[in-house]
């Protein structure tokens, strides 16, 4: 059953979790109403639609809310079956889910830690990020996208690597995306960022630099006062 009516997305402009969903909706050509939330001052609407975690993104379809970016991507893929994000074969689907989970839970966490730490913690996080990238480099194995010729589930979840990781690198003057160590990932980043639908839907770089610098400072102060 296809429904192009009554799709809303609650989001926050810089959230990579929200961006995954925006990209998915765009790839499928689904129209939606976007509602910007201030995650530091959560609206009653957000708290009502995601009472458990109070986080964005929340997709609302036919009046029913769905939270959690990866759960939302799977939902979108099941309801709007054209331009599939996940492969059809169960083994390939499990593989895609594995790598999406890896990118979202490991690489993303290490990269964030690298941004928001100093000294030994910082060095350890850089090392962990690069080890994680190495694994993704092997999985990519020279393909244009993780999904093959077309952008797929893993590309959308891992997409933060292409536009957000370079911002982190710039803020703390670190190097994670070494093109000599990760030629396939470097190539993938170019393919991904140049995709017509992706490049229209990226947060402005200067705004990201300001936002993440600020977050880093706040967290560093919080962490040092907790010690």
């Amino acid at each position, binding site marked *: 059953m296809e429904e192009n009516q009554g799709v809303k997305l609650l989001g926050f402009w810089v959230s990579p979790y929200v961006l995954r969903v925006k990209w998915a909706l765009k790839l499928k050509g689904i129209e939606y109403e976007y509602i910007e939330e201030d995650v530091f001052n959560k609206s009653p609407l957000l708290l009502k639609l995601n009472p458990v975690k109070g986080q964005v993104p929340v997709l609302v379809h036919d009046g029913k809310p769905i939270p959690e970016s990866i759960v939302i991507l799977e939902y979108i893929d099941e*309801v709007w079956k054209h331009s599939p994000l996940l492969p059809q074969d*169960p083994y390939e*689907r*499990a593989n895609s*889910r594995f790598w999406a989970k890896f990118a979202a839970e490991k690489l993303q966490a290490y990269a964030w830690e690298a941004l928001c730490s100093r000294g030994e913690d910082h060095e350890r996080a850089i090392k962990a990020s690069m080890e994680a990238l190495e694994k993704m480099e092997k999985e990519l194995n020279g393909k244009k996208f993780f999904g093959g010729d077309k952008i797929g589930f893993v590309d959308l979840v891992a997409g933060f690597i292409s536009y957000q990781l370079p911002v982190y690198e710039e803020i703390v003057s670190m190097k994670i995306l070494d093109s000599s160590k990760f030629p396939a990932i470097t190539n993938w980043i170019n393919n991904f960022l140049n995709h017509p639908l992706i490049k229209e839907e990226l947060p402005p770089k200067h705004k990201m630099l300001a936002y993440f610098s600020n977050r880093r400072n706040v967290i560093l102060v919080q962490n040092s006062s907790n010690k």
Partner: protein
Amino acid sequence: MADEVILLDHAYSPPAVRVRIALKEKGIAFESKQEDFSNKSSLLLEMNPVHKQIPVLIHNGKPICESLIIVGYIDEVWNEKSPLLPTDPHDRAHSKFWADYIDKKIYTLGRAVWTAKGETHAAAKKDLISSLKILEAELGDKPYFGGKTFGITDIALIPYYSWFYTLEKFGNLKMNEECPKLVAWGERCMQRESVSTTLHNQYETYDFILELRKKLGVE
């Protein structure tokens, strides 16, 4: 062609327990190979090079890793009976959300309750109780998280039923007071053969965890 299904397994690992239950719900014959965490087999290292962890399902030679991903795979491949996920996309999303919530919270918090000390322990206990109460509210008066049908959310949580006695001892709490509906739900799930023949009883699990704490050097 007969399916070859092997599970790289561990008797007391909650993620592995999930997979065993799912396989039994579907009536799938499988071979369980017990792994020793301190001496991982070459098969495990070959089949899960990224995480080197169990459970790993090896189906006709191909590995699938991560317990909830494995349960989803089992549901998709052996789809003629005992569905583990609902058919409606919104209900499926709902089940996946809660399974993911359980996956991210219960293991880490529970483990902290039986390993940590001081402030960390107090914070973990508080968080755990809060999470369990949230789960209890989600369960409500339904027989299972999936409603009338035992499904992926139940499978995600039920291995931790074995931990209840351990959590009571190390957390100085009473599960019957904190979350009586979850206790009742656990007992209900234990009436299913897939669960009762898979879960170790709470005292055996407590003994196992005591040994594990010694090995981890937690005292």
